[in-house]
C-alpha cells in the first residue's frame, strides 16, 4: 500500500491501462473465452470484497456464496418483474448485498471473529436452503434462465457484457481503493492488527466490522448481478459452501492485503484450471496443493510475493538498513530534553485535571485497586510507582475504561467517566499507551501517526470515497500534525518505514507517538521505558514529556524505573496492595518509610 501511495493516482492509471488492454484484446476471443474472462473479472470483484473484509478488517467470511446468490436473485427478480434493465438490477444487487452484509455483520457487536466466521458458515448453508425452497423466484432445484442484459434500453451480447463487467469492476475497485486509503481503511487495518490499541483510539471494533461486511456485501451483490447474466442459467446448487471457500481462496492466494491481488487470485483460481484442462482431473489436486503451499510459504499471496521482490530488487530498493536510533551520549537526556522544551515553547492548550476518588477494582475475588484516591492537577506530571501487583496498571485500565470500576468515581476535566467505554473516553481527551507494544504490523510509521488521529480526522466515508475537499483538507492537516509529532519523537526520518522493520526502541517510540499525536489532554503512559536500555528509556520519556508540554497535556506516568520517575515527576504516588501508601513530591516520597518498605519488605 505504502509503496504505491507515494505517487498518488499511479495505481489508478495502471489499473485503467490493464482494463483497457483487456477490452482491446477481448474482441478477438471466442465466445467461450469471453465467458471465461468475464467470470475471472467477476470473481476479481468478489476477491476484492474479501480484501476489504478479510484483508483489511481481518474478518474471514465463508458466507460469500450466499451474498453472491443474493445479488443473482436480486437481478432475476428485477429482470422478471420490472423493466428497469441492468442499471436497476445493479442498484438492487448492491442494496440487497449491502443490507444482507450488514445483517451478517451485526453479531460482531457481540461475538469474536472466530465465532462470526462460524456464523457466516451457517449463513451460507441456510441461504442455499432458502434459495432451494423459494422456487417461485429461483426455480428450485431445476434452476432458472436469466434473460440477456439490457442496459439503458439496448440488449448486450456476451462480449458487450464483458465490457460492462470490466467497467463495473473498475468502479468497484476504485470504490474499494478509495475506502481503503484514508481514515476508513486505516481504521479497519487498526482493528485487525491490534484491537486493543484501536479501541483505545476511539474505534468501535464491532461497528467497524459491520461496515466492512456492508461494503463487502455490496460489492458481491454487484458481482452477483453480472454473474447471473454471464452464466445466464442459475440454480441454487451453485451457491455452496465450497463456492464461498473458493472466493476466499481467491483473495488469499492473490494476497488478501492487495486489491490487485484479487485479480491475480481470480486468474489463478478461475482461469488457470481452464488452461490446465489437458491435465484432466489432476488440476484440482494441483490447485489444492498450490493453495496449501502458498499458505505455508507465501502468507501474503502472489501480490505479497511480488511486492516483496519489488522491494528487494526493484528500482526503489533500499541500499542500507534504516538508521539506528541516535542517542545523545549523556545519561541526563531527560533533563536536556526538558530544558529544551521550557525555553522555547508555550503550550498549545491546557491539560485537564484528573480526580480519582475511592476507586475499587476487583477481578474474581482479588481486589486489585482498593479505595484509591488521587488528584492530578491540570498540566502536571504525576508518577505512579509500586511493586508488582500493586495495582498501577489496573488503575490506568480503570481510568481508560478497560477495567470495570466497582466503586468510587473517576472524573476527567470535571466529567464523571463511570459508564463510558474506552472509545468515548478517547473523545474526552484521554490517551494511553500499553505496557506491551501493540503496533499495527504491516503498516508504516506514518500510518500509525494517522491512525492515532482517527477521531479527529474531520471527514466521513462519503468524502473519502469521492475524494471531496473535507478529505483532502483533513488528510493534509493530519499529515502535518503527524510530521510535527514525528519530529519531536525523533521519527521524522522513518515515517515511510514499516514498523516491523524497526528496532524495538524505535517501535516503542512509534507506540507512544500514536497515543500522543492526536494531542490528548490527559496522557496515561504505562511503563514506556520497559524493555529499553536505560538510555533509550530516558530518551523516550524525555521526548514524550517535551511533546506533552508542547501540546499542553497532563501526564500520568507508570514506570518501574523509580529513579527516572523521581527525576521527571512533579508528584509521585506510590501504591501497594491496591492502596495509596505515599503521595507527595519526589524528594519526600523517597524518604517515606512505607515507600521503602513496599519495595524492600519489612
Amino acid at each position, binding site marked *: 500500500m505504502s509503496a504505491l501511495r507515494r505517487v498518488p493516482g499511479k495505481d489508478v492509471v495502471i489499473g485503467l491501462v490493464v482494463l483497457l488492454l483487456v477490452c482491446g484484446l477481448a474482441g478477438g476471443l471466442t465466445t467461450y473465452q469471453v465467458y471465461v474472462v468475464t467470470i475471472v473479472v467477476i470473481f476479481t470483484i468478489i476477491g476484492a470484497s474479501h480484501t476489504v473484509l478479510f484483508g483489511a478488517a481481518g474478518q474471514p467470511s465463508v458466507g460469500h456464496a450466499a451474498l453472491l446468490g443474493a445479488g443473482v436473485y436480486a437481478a432475476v427478480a428485477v429482470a422478471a418483474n420490472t423493466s428497469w434493465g441492468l442499471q436497476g438490477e445493479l442498484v438492487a444487487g448492491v442494496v440487497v448485498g449491502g443490507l444482507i452484509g450488514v445483517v451478517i455483520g451485526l453479531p460482531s457487536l457481540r461475538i469474536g471473529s472466530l465465532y462470526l466466521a462460524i456464523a457466516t458458515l451457517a449463513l451460507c448453508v441456510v441461504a442455499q436452503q432458502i434459495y432451494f425452497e423459494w422456487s417461485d423466484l429461483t426455480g428450485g432445484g431445476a434452476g432458472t434462465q436469466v434473460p440477456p442484459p439490457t442496459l439503458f434500453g439496448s440488449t448486450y451480447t456476451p462480449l458487450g457484457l464483458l465490457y460492462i463487467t470490466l467497467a463495473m469492476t473498475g468502479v468497484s475497485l476504485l470504490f474499494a481503493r478509495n475506502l481503503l486509503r484514508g481514515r476508513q481503511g486505516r481504521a479497519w487495518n487498526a482493528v485487525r492488527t491490534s484491537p486493543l490499541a484501536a479501541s483505545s483510539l476511539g474505534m468501535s471494533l464491532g461497528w467497524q466490522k459491520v461496515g466492512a461486511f456492508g461494503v463487502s456485501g455490496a460489492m458481491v451483490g454487484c458481482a452477483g448481478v453480472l454473474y447471473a447474466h454471464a452464466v445466464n442459467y442459475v440454480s441454487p446448487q451453485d451457491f455452496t459452501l465450497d463456492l464461498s471457500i473458493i472466493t476466499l481462496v481467491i483473495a488469499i492466494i492473490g494476497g488478501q492485503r492487495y486489491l490487485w491481488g484479487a485479480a491475480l487470485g481470480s486468474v489463478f483460481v478461475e482461469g488457470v484450471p481452464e488452461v490446465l484442462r489437458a491435465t484432466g482431473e489432476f488440476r484440482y489436486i494441483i490447485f489444492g496443493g498450490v493453495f496449501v503451499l502458498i499458505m505455508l510459504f507465501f502468507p501474503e499471496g502472489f501480490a505479497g510475493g511480488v511486492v516483496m521482490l519489488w522491494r528487494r530488487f526493484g528500482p526503489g530498493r533500499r541500499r542500507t538498513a534504516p538508521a539506528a536510533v541516535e542517542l545523545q551520549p549523556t545519561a541526563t537526556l531527560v533533563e536536556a530534553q526538558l530544558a529544551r522544551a521550557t525555553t522555547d515553547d508555550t503550550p498549545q492548550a491546557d491539560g485537564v485535571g484528573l480526580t480519582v476518588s475511592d476507586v475499587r477494582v476487583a477481578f474474581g475475588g*482479588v481486589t486489585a485497586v482498593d479505595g484509591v484516591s488521587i488528584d492530578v492537577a491540570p498540566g502536571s506530571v504525576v508518577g505512579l510507582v509500586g*511493586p*508488582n*501487583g500493586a495495582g498501577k496498571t489496573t488503575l490506568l485500565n480503570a481510568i481508560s475504561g478497560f477495567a470495570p470500576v466497582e466503586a468510587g468515581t473517576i472524573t476527567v476535566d470535571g466529567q464523571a467517566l463511570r459508564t463510558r467505554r474506552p472509545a468515548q473516553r478517547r473523545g474526552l481527551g484521554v490517551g494511553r499507551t500499553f505496557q506491551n*507494544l501493540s503496533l499495527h504490523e504491516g503498516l508504516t510509521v506514518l500510518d500509525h501517526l494517522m491512525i492515532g488521529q482517527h477521531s479527529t480526522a474531520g471527514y466521513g466515508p462519503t468524502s473519502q470515497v469521492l475524494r471531496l475537499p473535507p478529505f483532502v483538507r483533513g488528510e493534509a492537516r493530519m499529515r502535518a500534525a503527524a510530521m510535527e509529532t514525528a519530529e519531536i519523537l525523533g521519527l521524522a526520518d522513518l515515517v515511510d518505514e514499516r514498523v516491523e522493520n*524497526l*528496532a*524495538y526502541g524505535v*517501535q516503542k517510540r512509534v507506540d507512544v507517538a500514536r497515543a500522543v499525536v492526536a494531542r490528548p489532554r490527559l496522557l496515561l503512559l504505562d*511503563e514506556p521505558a*520497559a*524493555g*529499553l*536500555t*536505560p538510555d533509550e528509556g530516558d530518551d523516550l520519556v524525555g521526548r514524550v514529556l517535551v511533546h506533552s508540554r508542547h501540546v499542553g497535556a497532563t501526564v500520568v506516568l507508570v514506570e*518501574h*524505573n*523509580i*529513579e527516572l520517575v*523521581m527525576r521527571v515527576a512533579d508528584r509521585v504516588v506510590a501504591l501497594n496492595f491496591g492502596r495509596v501508601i505515599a503521595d507527595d513530591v519526589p*524528594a519526600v516520597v*523517597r*524518604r517515606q*518509610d512505607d515507600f*521503602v518498605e513496599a*519495595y*524492600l*519488605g*519489612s
Partner: protein
Amino acid sequence: MAADPGIGDGRSGGLVLRGVTAGYGRSSVLHGIDLTVRPGQRVAVLGPNGAGKTTTLRVVSGLVEARTGEVTLDGGSLLGLRPDEIVRRGVAHVPQGRRVFPDFTVEENLRTAAYTRGGRDVDDDIAMVLEAFPRLRDRFGVRAGFLSGGEQQMLAIGRAVVQRPRLVLIDEMSLGLAPILIKELYSRLDVLFADVPAVIVEQNPSIALEHCGWVHVLAGGQVKASGPASEFTSQERLMQAYTGAVEGVPS
C-alpha cells in the same frame, strides 16, 4: 563485594550463566547476565520489577531462548533445548502466578509432574508433599482452579517436588500471599529441597535473605551486585542497587 564463587569452575557442577542476553520479540530484557549456583546452594535473585529476574529463570528452563551467552547445568549446556528436554535434565521451574492446571484436581496436578517418568513411582512423592502441606490433603480431589492463592502455590511447589529435580527455580513465590503463609512456604522449602540447589526470585527481599545463602541483585537486565546474604541486610545497600541512586536513601 565478595568474589563470585562460581567463576572459573563452570565445569565442576551447578548452574552457570555467562553473558546471557535475551528478550521477547525485538525487545531486550537481559543485557549480559553472569550468575552461578553451586551444588547445594540456595540463591536469591532480587531486584525491582522489570529487572529481568523472571526472564533469567525462563532462559534457564527454556521458555525463552538466550540470544548470546551460555547456560550450563552440571557442565552440560542447556542452550537450544526445548523446555520438556530441560525438565528431563532435572530442572524444575515453579513459574510466576503458580500456573497450576485449573481443571485438574490436586492429585492430577501432582501426577502430571511425573510425566517424564511415565507417571510411575509417584505415590511416595505425593505422600511427601501432603505431609509438608496438610492443607492439600484436605483438598486432594478438588479442582485446582478453586484453590486459594496460597494453596495453589503449595501445589505448584508440590509439583516441583514430584519432578525430583536437580535444580529448582522458584519465581515470586510470595506474590499476593499473606506474610504468615509466606513464612510457612519458605520453611517447607528448607525441608523439601534441603539438598537441591535452588534459584529463588523475590520482590520481597527480607524473607528471601533469611532463607538464602547467596544473593544476586538484578537491575536493568544485569547483575548489579552479588554476595552472601549477610552483606545485604542493610537497606541502603539494596536500595542503592535497586534504584541506582546514591542519595536520598534513609539512613
